[in-house]
């Protein structure tokens, strides 16, 4: 029976499964429940067996609960807070009586991989199977309608040295690196530094700063030293979840995800105890010895007054001594190794003290099974003298701890099996990463402490580029001592071959040794394939509790060695991370034009075009179209890209970039531009205006600005051309004033002569408009007399206001992108990227006139010549619907069931009172008046429209209105 030690802190009220409980300040959720009589915290994944605290360090899945609506919270490392609503998960109808625990009784019908084999037929029932299986298995459930207040944040940190692990080696590494002048970030997943020393009473030796102190005192001393060092930033309660290329470390700290970069990393992630293998090794009351010590020292809760300690290494003897010091009596120490004296190895130093404390030492004994049902009541062991039951309410597992290698493995460093140590040890880390402390496999204090200090010193010196100071020599000497120590170690007892019953290897996925055996017998005989088949190591702990054990069990079953079996590939995250923490910022980049507020005030319905916000329409598309045709419309075209291309060679450079010519363009004139890639494919279009002899104003499509800018700069790189390209998109706000009355509006806002004679079609003029310096281009996309006006964006709203005020008496109406799309379709103007694709050549897209084959060279010349030589295979052409609905963009055009083309754009034209569009057709089908059948597309399967080909613009085919 668990009991609270001492008075504890202030009382904290919380609820478990709807019932009120009381904990103490300093408690975790799990310790508070344990102290208040609640032991079973969860039900296992598959067999729904009762599970209780196992590691008390946030590594295993046993204590996962739902806290305030958030599932899968590790209650053993979650500080208790007032008012917490804690609930069990994966149990029905209650944690005490879970109907699904019947699966535990019928497990013979549920062999490994049973659902792969069982639920494959009939295939139509799979959705039902899936639903049932997902309900039966699994862990916490997300409230899909809830909005937990996660507030994830991102933080980017930089340091000279990052130290991962806040145990003694990590702390000393951080202190030494800081002493070398380095800026250090020390990451530790515990609320306070000190690592295992926080739960250790024996004296620490091997570092002057800690000499003679007990473990707990040494931990406190380390905390003081780190806190006093201004060059160290300590990230507490922070888990290094991933180690990536370029020494990037992903760290989770509460709701914050930290991306930390450091040229030097010291890994001091230590070692950890793991479960041991025997029947029913998952019974509540069986926990790691370190968990018992953590409960007692850190949370002041004693899980039981007495314990049986089970070990396969000298480590268990030390832990037994520590348990006694912590006030937990040890009735027996079961060591699976033969008696030391008989086996010829040195007798553990703790033997006399343990015997004096009344501990029965049972060497050469093998655990057979745990006794008891909902709670362990004893341990059945097999001794040389025969079978024996040890009665106890607490079994403390103290097998040899394994180095925590996952982060290093994420860097691609393969762990190596050391026969002498009987464990996996780290391989050689890459440059910039050092391994220190218990990870090295030599667990004696002097080596751990010296290793940490030396690693830190070396990392600090390397990060700061300081001259060598003898540290390298000391490291070499240290390495030699480590090797000597390791050579003197004896491996733990080998694992016995799994017997009957459930011996859990993987607590997360409820995978037993027997199931691994079945998997191997079925042919999944490598650890990687066995992992995928059995799901061992694939649960929430990601192998932290079972990776080494799985490899050892596999090796035993396959009559191999762990050296051959190896470990599976480690991938981030080391610890589960909420998707919210990994997600990008909830803020997504938005670009607004200078007239954004004006559109908003007019009730614009917005459309996202890349990062830009553009008005789709202002409520009545047909009215907007009508205003452009009959009076005057105003559209914000600031999103078009604008580049200033200047310099003595600017004209010649634009000639090279484009298939048509610009060096002969007169100052004050505009020319259409289409840009091709090397394969002669159209990649952008727009206009080029020559504003001065050596200055061109180049417009691009809205989405292609960056691409065009980079394309131009790429072709200029290394060139001797005297050309400069400057992106002026942001500098200019632009509108297009279009319609038969546009000239009248212009005359009201500028002193410039805007007559047809002075400012004809394709003129480019600089002058004041609305009192603001402007570039005016006599071009348009919508088929009417148009003025494209560019002014500095700081005056964009002013220009808009002035034009609206001047135009209102003339019937001016703002129009949006939707009206523009209708208007341009009436003119059969193509949009690059919508009506063209990665195979569209100018000849086929109806822009053949733009290619000046007589030019000596330009980008895409050879390809264009080749296309011209073979003739177009497909043609972009117009169509109008004769009967039926408006086809979707992308709809197939068929003849006798065979595709002959596809629709790229289609709209209802209020002007023409019929649906029109553009489509790619095979060249033999693109004949004026040819009948077409168009499949309407998704959602209207089986429906078709009848259409006819129209090769000339639907509206003002000769362009008289545009040129007026």
């Amino acid at each position, binding site marked *: 029976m668990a009991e609270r030690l001492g008075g504890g802190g202030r009382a904290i009220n919380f609820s478990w499964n709807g019932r009120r409980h009381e904990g103490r300040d300093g408690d975790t959720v799990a310790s508070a429940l344990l102290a208040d009589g609640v032991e079973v915290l969860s039900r296992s994944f598959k067999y729904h067996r009762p599970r209780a605290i196992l590691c008390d360090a946030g590594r295993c899945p046993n204590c996962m609960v739902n806290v305030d609506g958030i599932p899968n919270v590790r209650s053993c490392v979650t500080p208790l807070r007032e008012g917490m609503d804690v609930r069990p998960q994966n149990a029905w109808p209650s944690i005490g009586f879970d109907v699904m625990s019947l699966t535990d009784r019928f497990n013979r019908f549920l062999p490994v991989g049973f659902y792969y084999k069982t639920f494959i037929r009939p295939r139509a029932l799979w959705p039902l199977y899936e639903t049932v299986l997902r309900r039966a298995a699994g862990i916490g459930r997300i409230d899909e309608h809830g909005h937990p207040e996660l507030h994830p*944040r*991102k*933080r*980017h*940190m*930089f340091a000279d040295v990052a130290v991962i692990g806040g145990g003694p080696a990590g702390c000393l590494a951080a202190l030494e690196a800081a002493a070398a002048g380095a*800026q250090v970030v020390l990451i530790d997943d515990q609320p306070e530094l000190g690592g295992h020393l926080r739960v250790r009473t024996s004296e620490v030796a091997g570092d002057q700063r800690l000499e003679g102190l007990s473990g707990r005192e040494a931990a406190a001393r380390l905390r003081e030293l780190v806190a006093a060092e201004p060059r160290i930033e300590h990230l507490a309660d922070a888990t290094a979840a991933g180690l990536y290329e370029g020494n990037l470390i992903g760290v989770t700290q509460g709701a914050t995800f930290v*991306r930390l*970069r450091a040229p030097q990393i010291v890994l001091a992630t230590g070692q950890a105890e793991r479960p041991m293998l025997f029947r029913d090794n998952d019974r509540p009351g069986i926990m790691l010895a370190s968990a018992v010590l953590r409960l007692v020292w850190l949370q002041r809760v004693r899980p039981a007054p007495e314990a049986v300690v089970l070990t396969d290494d000298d480590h268990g003897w030390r832990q037994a001594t520590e348990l006694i010091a912590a006030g937990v009596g040890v009735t027996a120490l079961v060591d699976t190794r033969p008696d030391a004296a008989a086996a010829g190895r040195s007798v553990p130093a703790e033997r006399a003290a343990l015997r004096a404390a009344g501990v029965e030492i049972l060497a050469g004994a093998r655990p057979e099974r745990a006794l008891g049902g909902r709670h362990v009541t004893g341990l059945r062991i097999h001794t040389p003298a025969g079978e024996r039951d040890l009665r106890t309410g607490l079994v403390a597992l103290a097998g040899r701890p394994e180095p925590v290698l996952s982060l290093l493995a994420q860097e691609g460093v393969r762990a190596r099996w050391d026969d002498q140590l009987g464990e996996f040890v780290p391989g050689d880390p890459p440059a910039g990463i050092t391994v220190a402390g218990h990870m090295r496999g030599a667990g004696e204090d002097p080596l751990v402490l010296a290793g940490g200090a030396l690693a830190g010193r070396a990392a600090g010196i390397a990060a700061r580029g300081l001259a060598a100071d003898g540290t390298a020599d000391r490291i070499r000497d240290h390495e030699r001592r480590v090797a000597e120590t390791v050579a003197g170690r004896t491996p733990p007892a080998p694992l016995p071959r799994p017997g009957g019953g459930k011996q859990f290897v993987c607590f997360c996925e409820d995978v037993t040794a027997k199931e691994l055996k079945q998997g191997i017998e079925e042919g999944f005989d490598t650890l990687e394939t066995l992992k995928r088949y059995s799901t061992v190591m694939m649960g929430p702990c990601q192998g932290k509790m079972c990776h080494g054990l799985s490899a050892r069990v596999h090796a035993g079953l396959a009559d191999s060695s762990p050296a051959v079996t190896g470990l599976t590939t480690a991938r981030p995250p080391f610890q589960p991370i909420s998707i919210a923490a990994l997600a990008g*910022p909830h*803020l*997504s*980049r*938005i*670009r*607004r*034009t*200078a007239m*954004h*507020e004006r559109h908003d005030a007019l009730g614009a319905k917005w459309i996202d075009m890349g*990062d*830009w916000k553009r008005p789709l329409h202002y409520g009545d598309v047909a009215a907007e179209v009508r205003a452009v045709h009959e009076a005057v419309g105003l559209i914000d075209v*600031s999103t078009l890209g604008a580049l*200033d291309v*200047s*310099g003595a060679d600017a004209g010649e450079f634009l000639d090279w970039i484009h298939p048509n010519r610009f060096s002969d363009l007169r100052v004050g004139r505009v020319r259409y531009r289409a840009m091709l890639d090397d394969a002669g494919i159209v990649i952008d279009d727009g206009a080029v205006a020559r504003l001065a002899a050596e200055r061109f104003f180049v417009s691009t499509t809205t989405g292609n600005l960056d691409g065009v800018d980079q394309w131009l700069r790429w072709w200029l790189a290394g060139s001797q051309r*005297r*050309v*400069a*390209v*400057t*992106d*002026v*998109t*942001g*500098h*200019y*706000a632009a509108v297009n004033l279009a319609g038969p009355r546009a000239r009248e509006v212009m005359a*009201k*806002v*500028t*002193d410039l002569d805007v007559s047809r004679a002075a400012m004809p079609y394709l003129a480019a003029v600089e002058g*004041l408009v*609305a*009192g*603001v310096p402007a570039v005016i281009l006599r071009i348009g996309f919508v088929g009417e007399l148009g003025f494209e006006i560019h002014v*500095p*964006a*700081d*005056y*964009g*709203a*002013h220009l808009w206001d*002035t034009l609206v*005020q*001047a135009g209102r008496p003339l019937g001016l109406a703002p129009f949006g992108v939707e009206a523009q799309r209708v208007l341009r379709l009436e003119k059969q103007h193509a949009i690059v990227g919508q009506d063209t694709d990665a195979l569209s050549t100018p000849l086929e897209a109806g822009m053949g006139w733009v290619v000046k084959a007589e030019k000596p060279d330009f980008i895409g010349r050879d390809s264009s010549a080749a296309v011209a030589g073979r003739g177009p295979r497909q043609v972009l052409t117009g169509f109008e619907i004769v009967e039926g609905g408006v086809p979707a963009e992308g709809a197939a055009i068929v003849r006798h069931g065979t595709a002959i083309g596809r629709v790229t754009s289609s709209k209802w034209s209020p002007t023409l009172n019929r649906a029109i569009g553009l489509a790619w057709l095979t060249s033999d089908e693109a004949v004026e008046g040819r009948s077409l059948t168009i499949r309407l597309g998704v959602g209207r399967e089986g429906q078709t429209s009848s259409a006819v080909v129209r090769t000339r613009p639907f509206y003002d085919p000769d362009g008289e209105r545009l040129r007026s």
Partner: protein
Amino acid sequence: MSPEAVTPIRRSPLESIHARLGARWRSETERWPVSYGDEEDEARIVREGIALAEPGPYDKIAVRGRSTLVDLRWLGLAAGAGRLEPARTPGGINAWVPAEDEAILVRLAGVGAPRGRAATVATESLAEIAEKLRSAGPSVTDVSSGYTVFRLVGPRLHALLQELSPVDLSARAVPDLGIVAAVVVGCRMLLARRDHDGLPGFVLLVVRDEAAYVWDSIVELGATHGLRPVGAAAFRSPDLTEAHGAVGGVR
């Protein structure tokens, strides 16, 4: 309406945001905030929290070409690449020189040669400087509206910068007057470290179209760090030369 009757109004890209905060404008035709009402409180934010301001308006020209740095040296406007060359006199030109072949010259709008005095580089208008540069070789383009200027100043700035940008913007990585091209809240921009009265500070050259998004994002992420928007008066002057007191109608 005659064209002459139109008085152009120059607007900050954040005009509506400033207006909602109760901005007192620099002038009716230049809508940049001098303050939001309590100048003393805003000055306190600068000293104790993090202040975010959009001083202005500034005129700006982009200079590009192989001889850019050489020509700026010739005009006494820059010494080297990779740094912000602050103006030497009130209302002078701040030269952002991220690389040897490109620069952006920035000056508080409306500042030019005082009447009756000989023009010097310090007092010439940007247009005059542009002409000199053009004649020397580089390409010069007016980008006055292309960027707006943000200032971030305050003792708690470092923690916020760690959230705003994946680039190391610590004092070690970017010394005072150092320039760095970085992504801030997902947007590319130039930043110059410009400390203020011993407090860490940055000047951000933000693309105009993205200014509202960048501002909103910084305000949201900065709220937990004590960030608040302030007017230019909180810095005594909107002039990046800083030490020269009242310039351009503020105070």
